């Protein structure tokens, strides 16, 4: 197996204090292998979003380490983290992924133009072709459907060839057909271009597109599946929600 794209070591994060203390992350350690499509699942409040936010440099943990490549995210200042997000991480959020004033094409290249770089034309064309939006590049987001908007967001996440793409419930707001398109897109980026993708989801169908599912409960990794299918995922979920 290749070098992991990111490593999480003993990550702990709590909210509140005293009686109201919530352990969002409780000594989580995890390797995210390069070129793998990983799903993070768990009931709400299990810490899956917090884990993703900490890995992506959007949130800080109380203790523990997050290494993206060889670099320790938890030791960086805001400037460095911002640059790391810009250069090494791609994002797809559940909704509101695009800047409404920019065209689809401008949105795709935004992380690069913020960095003052030009997109690699060949790669850009390849991404746009994969996403299948060639004729919509000059439209504003408000002129695109929800599914199209999410595909633009995926294209944006891929265009800077980031080390990892984080997707936070990317299909949560979509109908099943559009959702399937987005998931296939992510899958293909892993298969064809060895892109590392980490996706938070609560949808077993979505999880079935991945190589590996990590289950979180009460801030801990409780279960893991490799090459999951929908039934396996459902079974684990049922077991987790059953009273102990």
């Amino acid at each position, binding site marked *: 197996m290749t070098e992991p794209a990111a490593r999480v070591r003993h990550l702990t994060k709590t909210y509140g204090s005293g009686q109201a203390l919530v352990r969002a992350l409780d000594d989580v350690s995890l390797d995210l292998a390069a070129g793998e499509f990983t799903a993070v699942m768990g009931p709400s409040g299990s810490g899956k979003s917090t884990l993703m936010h900490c890995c992506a440099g959007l949130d800080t943990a109380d203790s523990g380490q997050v290494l993206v490549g060889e670099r320790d995210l938890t030791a960086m200042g805001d400037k460095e983290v911002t640059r790391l997000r810009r250069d090494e991480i791609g994002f797809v959020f559940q909704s509101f992924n695009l800047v409404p004033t920019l065209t689809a094409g401008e949105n795709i290249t935004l992380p690069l133009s*913020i960095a003052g770089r030009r997109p690699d034309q060949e790669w850009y064309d390849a991404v746009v072709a994969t996403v299948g939006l060639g004729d919509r590049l000059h439209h504003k987001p408000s002129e695109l459907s929800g599914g199209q908007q999410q595909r633009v967001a995926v294209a944006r996440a891929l265009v800077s060839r980031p080390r990892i793409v984080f997707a936070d419930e990317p299909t949560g707001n979509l109908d099943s057909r559009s959702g399937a398109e987005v998931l296939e897109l992510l899958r293909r980026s892993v298969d064809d271009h060895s892109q590392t993708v980490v996706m938070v989801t609560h949808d077993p169908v979505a999880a079935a597109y991945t190589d590996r599912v990590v289950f979180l409960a009460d801030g801990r990794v409780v279960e893991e599946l490799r090459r999951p299918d929908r039934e396996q995922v459902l079974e684990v979920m049922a077991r987790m929600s059953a009273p102990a």
Partner: protein
Amino acid sequence: MIRAALKSLLGRKLRLLMSTFAIVLGVAFVTGSLVFSDTLGRSFTALFASTVGDVVVRPVGGTTTQGAPSTQTLPAALIDELADVPGAARADGNVTAVGVFVVDTYGKVVGGLGPPALGGNWNDAPAGHGLTGLTVQEGREPRRSGEVVLDERTAERAGYDVGDRVPFVTSTERLNLDAELVGIAEFAEGGSLNGATLAQFDTATAQELFLEGRDVYNDVWVTAEDGVSQEELAERVREVLPEGVEAVTGDDAADEAASDLLEAVSFLTTFLLIFAGISLVVGSFLIVNTFSILVAQRSRELALLRALGASKRQVTWSVQLEALVLGLVGSSVGLGLGVLLAQGIRAVTSSFGLDLSGQGLVFEPRTVVAAYAVGVLVTMAAAWLPARRTARIAPVQALRDDVALPEGSLRRRLWAGLALAVAGLAALAAGLFADVPRAGWWVGLGVLAVLLGVAAASPVLSRPFLGAARAAYARAFGAVGNLAGQNSLRNPRRTTATASALMIGLTLACTMAIVGDSAKATVDESVAESFVGDYVVSSAFGGEFSPAIADRMAEVDGVASVLRERFAFGERDGDDQGISATDPDTVDDLGLTLVEGSADPLRDETVVVEESWAEDEGVAVGDTVTLDLPTGEARWEVVGVFEDNPIVFFPLLTTVDTLLAAGFADRDNYVVVDAEDGAAAGLQERLEEVVADSPVVTVKDEAGFAAEQREPIDQLVLMIFALLGLALVIAVLGIVNTLALSVIERTREVGLLRAIGLSRAQLRLMITLESVVIAVLGAVLGTVLGTFFGVALMRALRDEGLDVISVPVGQLAAFLLVAVVVGVLAAVLPARRAARLDVLRAIATD
């Protein structure tokens, strides 16, 4: 519903208060000007009530139309006659002169500008209605020559105590006097002299000093016996009066005098009210903007209220209720600030000599009513547009994710705005070039209509500018520039409404800059064209001074000749008519070119007239000009017509003796000194010695004279700039407010940008660039409109002798630069706020 409205108000209080700032300022100006003019009125009324008797008997034409005593007097014999009138307790004669300046212990004149320096005779007659008039507080009254009584405030300002010698400089024939201070007097009933100074001598001395030693008086007070009213006494007095003498009740005389003075300072309150208007107009833009943004942000909440059963009207009125509360708060703060402002104005005017410190601020109930009416009405009217739009929010929108507030068509706005601007232009043109009554209103409302029209049309009109700005930004600043440019295009209404606030202030500033610069250029040109002789002796604002100055200058070593010019006002067909006068043989020295007739020497009782005036009035050589003067009607023959010449201030020129005979006091306004050949060295210093101790009289060569003429223009322009600076502050707050609100509105977008790698510095740059676009847009619109108004105004004033149009390009460029700086500064807080946004929370916000 009310509770919901108030809750939402409290939740946004800081931001709302910022947009109320303009209302606060507007109300403060209204309050300030009302309080100040009431205070002034009360003070003058109190003063004049103490300075008139029950009945005042005076010669018709006893004062000139400008309010100064003329040479028309009453004989002493009349006093005894008046004292015998049934119902009269006593009659006392008064001697009054203006231009009797007290010189303080440092050799400086006390007062000097504005309020008069009064001289006269002491008498102990009671003022009207049995009020005790001037009363000696310390020492005693003056009894013989060489003794004087000063009012308390003047003695204090000059630093004299009883027993000191007080020097005077006068604009009467006696240039210098001095007298022993034997007493200090005060108005027993209160009433401040408002900065005027008062020096009283015994009657014989006063007559000698001011009335050439004749036993005559300027007016007579007749005091009523108990139970006789002022009207009754006046009636009876009138029966014994000879031709050419009139009697008025003390009440009327006091009102007359007070209203004359109030009118003289009314420009100050007018000025303040104009600025109140400006800041309210600018403020209403900001309120429209703020409420539009707030309503847009809350549209989902409002839709929810509708879904829960609130009627359209209730939703609309919940917004209006917020405006009401805001208006009340703004007015209250403004009211307080206005009182402080009035206090400030009082302090400033006292430094100009109008000393009101003896009178507490007058706070009439009307002031409060006006303040609240203005503040609340403007706020509610401005909020009405956005409030009305809320009625179009459908209840179902509460269930949707993205609620777009319906907006009116931009095209309709464009046409409405253009129509308004055209109507404004028409009104402006009518006011400036056509002969309409109340031209000032036409011009003012025309300008307002143009400004509002352009503001309404600007979302469409300024699109090319915003597009160009976006392109330029994208080129210069890459992605960040592109984002900033796109943001300013995103809601052109909001961008342009914010810019319009700045536009208004800058329009007026540019107009003033052009008018001021042109006026100065005109002064320079006319001084260069018409300056004759080598030196000009003048007093600030063309004030009058003693004829002794010209006499003494004629004797100074190296002076070849001296030419005096003086001014007077008579009435011609009921309108004021200015008259210039000079010595008979100096028409040539003035450099006048006669186009008709001859005037060398100019004979008494004849006039030469200015060519343009002669044309306008249809007067030609051989005609007679009829004027009402202090001595009655005068008929002067027109003997010549001269080419317009700015050194002759008024279109009629007659002789000095003619004016003296017509009852005008013997005072000069300008003296032109011609030097002997080769006498320049040290001459100016020698001439200056003559006027060394005279108040505000100076000797200037051509350059100095031009500078002196420019000075009042500079001061006025500076004062207007200072007030327009306030409009600028309001506009800056408007930009801050709009940016801050739109940052909040775009929280998620900001979060997204930060998540995908926009650094804090880049975010701050983006918001600063947005701010600069708004500011520069406002500045460009303002500069263009201001230049247009300025040039139009100057064209209209061409007939008034202001025929040079000068556009101060450097100054206008500086305004644009200031706008950029303003933009950068306005962005500081909103940018910081945006940069501090927690990325996670921003993304999570819905």
